[in-house]
């Protein structure tokens, strides 16, 4: 069905370049609705229409509902939306950098690098700084993601050309090394630390706090500062490094900015929610099927769709086996895995090239 929808959209290619005008506001509207449903859903059901009152502090709201919304549901909903947005946006930028729709922070080892650095911080950092180490998590996850991205780019790109097979295999290798080192740390860790690791390896939004929400917003704002450097440059990079250079792009600056932006977004997402896969892969790819791949529209649209999807996945994760909770990484992998296979099959020609 997706294919049928896609082809009927493509046949009206005349409006394809302008579709972001409908898609972006539509996704924004959908996000508001999804977020409201997410806040209302849970062990204690809250009436949808009482939400505005609770959020605006009206006197009609019960204390119980106000506490649930403000200290549990709202931070979790915001965190899910922000993490989804960060992952999808970082996927879109990473794909632009590698000129390849199969790049994803989870698949190519960037997330594993972040996880390793985060786990390092917990195990080694706690001995050095005590509980303050937790606050360093976003920064260390960023550094880990940054190192993994730089390493991968060095391996996979030669003479301005990124080789898909090298990129995917290099990513597998980096992921394996990072996982092995993470395993060593787990072996050395205490009972308490061990419990925290499950969270990292499968991904979870449980334990959302306002502090985590604030750290994601801060890192996303930092990544946003790099945005003017990136949008048109990544479009031009789609033709290759030397063509982008001929069109006036400072390719070295562009690549550095893209790597830092990806690492900021992936790092902070990993630091608050562990490794959640496939959002960064699937979202930009689906969008490119229906709208212009120009990054100035693609990245914001990806952020919005990523936010929507991760909110939905989180609702599934916390309701499907209630009162227990499924790690959200399992939900995104169940949906994203098959989509990735489908992309591999339809991209066979490019992979062999």
């Amino acid at each position, binding site marked *: 069905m997706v294919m049928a929808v896609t082809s009927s959209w493509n046949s009206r*290619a005349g409006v394809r370049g302008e579709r972001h005008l409908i898609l972006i506001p539509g996704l924004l509207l959908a996000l508001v609705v999804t977020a409201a449903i997410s806040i209302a859903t849970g062990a204690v059901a809250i009436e949808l229409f009482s939400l505005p009152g609770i959020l605006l502090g009206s006197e009609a709201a019960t204390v119980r509902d106000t506490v649930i919304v403000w200290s549990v549901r709202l931070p979790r909903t915001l965190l899910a939306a922000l993490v989804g947005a960060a992952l999808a946006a970082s996927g879109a930028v990473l794909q632009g950098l590698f000129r390849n729709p199969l790049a994803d922070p989870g698949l190519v080892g960037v997330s594993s690098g972040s996880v390793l650095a985060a786990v390092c911080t917990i195990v080694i950092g706690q001995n050095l700084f005590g509980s303050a180490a937790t606050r360093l998590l976003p920064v260390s996850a960023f550094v880990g993601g940054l190192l993994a991205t730089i390493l991968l780019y060095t391996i996979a790109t030669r003479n301005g050309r990124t080789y898909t097979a090298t990129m995917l295999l290099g990513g597998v290798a980096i992921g394996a090394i990072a996982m092995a080192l993470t395993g060593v740390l787990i072996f050395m860790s205490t009972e308490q630390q061990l419990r925290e690791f499950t969270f990292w390896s499968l991904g979870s939004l449980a334990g959302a706090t306002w502090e985590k929400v604030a750290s994601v917003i801060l890192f996303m704002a930092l990544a946003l500062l790099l945005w003017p450097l990136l949008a048109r440059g990544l479009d031009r990079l789609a033709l290759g490094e030397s063509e982008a250079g*001929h069109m*006036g792009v400072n390719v070295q600056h562009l690549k550095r900015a893209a790597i830092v932006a990806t690492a900021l977004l992936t790092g902070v997402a990993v630091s608050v929610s562990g490794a959640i896969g496939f959002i960064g892969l699937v979202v930009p790819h689906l969008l490119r099927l229906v709208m212009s791949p120009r990054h100035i529209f693609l990245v914001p649209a990806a952020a919005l769709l990523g936010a929507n999807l991760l909110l939905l996945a989180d609702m599934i994760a916390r309701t499907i086996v209630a009162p227990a909770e499924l790690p959200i990484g399992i939900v995104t992998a169940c949906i994203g895995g098959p989509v990735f296979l489908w992309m591999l099959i339809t991209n066979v020609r490019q992979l062999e090239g």
Partner: protein
Amino acid sequence: MFHALDVSFSRGKNPIISNANLELRAGELTVVIGPNGAGKSTLLKLLTGDLTPASGNIWFDGRALQQWSSRELAARRAVLSQSTTLAFPFTVREVISLGFPDGLQVRDRHAIVAEALHSFDLRGFEHRLFQELSGGEQQRVHLARVVCQLRSGATEGPKCLFLDEPVSNLDIKHQIHTLSAVRELLSPRIGAFVILHDLNLAATFADRIVIMRGGHIAANDITERALTAKILTAVFGVRMNVACHGEKRRVELAEGC
């Protein structure tokens, strides 16, 4: 405007270009011909700054090439490479617009794109997906892109168009259309440097011909003087005659080949 002084370049131990001296002039269409592996593309890449010479210097408009930033150069010269792949599904109009400088007025963009679509026989293609076009159509889109980049670039100073085998995938009609469009672009401020394989296209459209062999510039002169049976036969290793029709030259295979 472009000067190459004693430029050499090698890959590993193999010299690709040896002591090349060349001047490109605004207002002229310079065509480079030569057998495979003669160093034509390498010379083009040296002049566009893609490669850095091992020795010798390249000057553009009185300044050493490496002192130009990529943004400054992009306003003054546009480059069509031999093979270009596109990673994402852009439309034809989007590909053509990639070369525009940031902050160009929308109205100017539309006017320049419309003219390029006309010059390269691409009307009606602008909303098609680039990846779904044939090889020749894609080549014409890239030509339109580099021409738009050059036209929307700097309003002062000399400018140059570099084309590496721009007509290799085109049918005869579009070969002629394309090279005519390039000629129409020439002005006292704009020159072009074009690599071609077809000697008669070179003879028809070039003001000046550079003949390369084995990394050396074997000849560099106005078309009427550069195209001689003797040098063509020596360079290409096939016996050829050059017929004169007034100013024009026509290259033919010699009998017995």
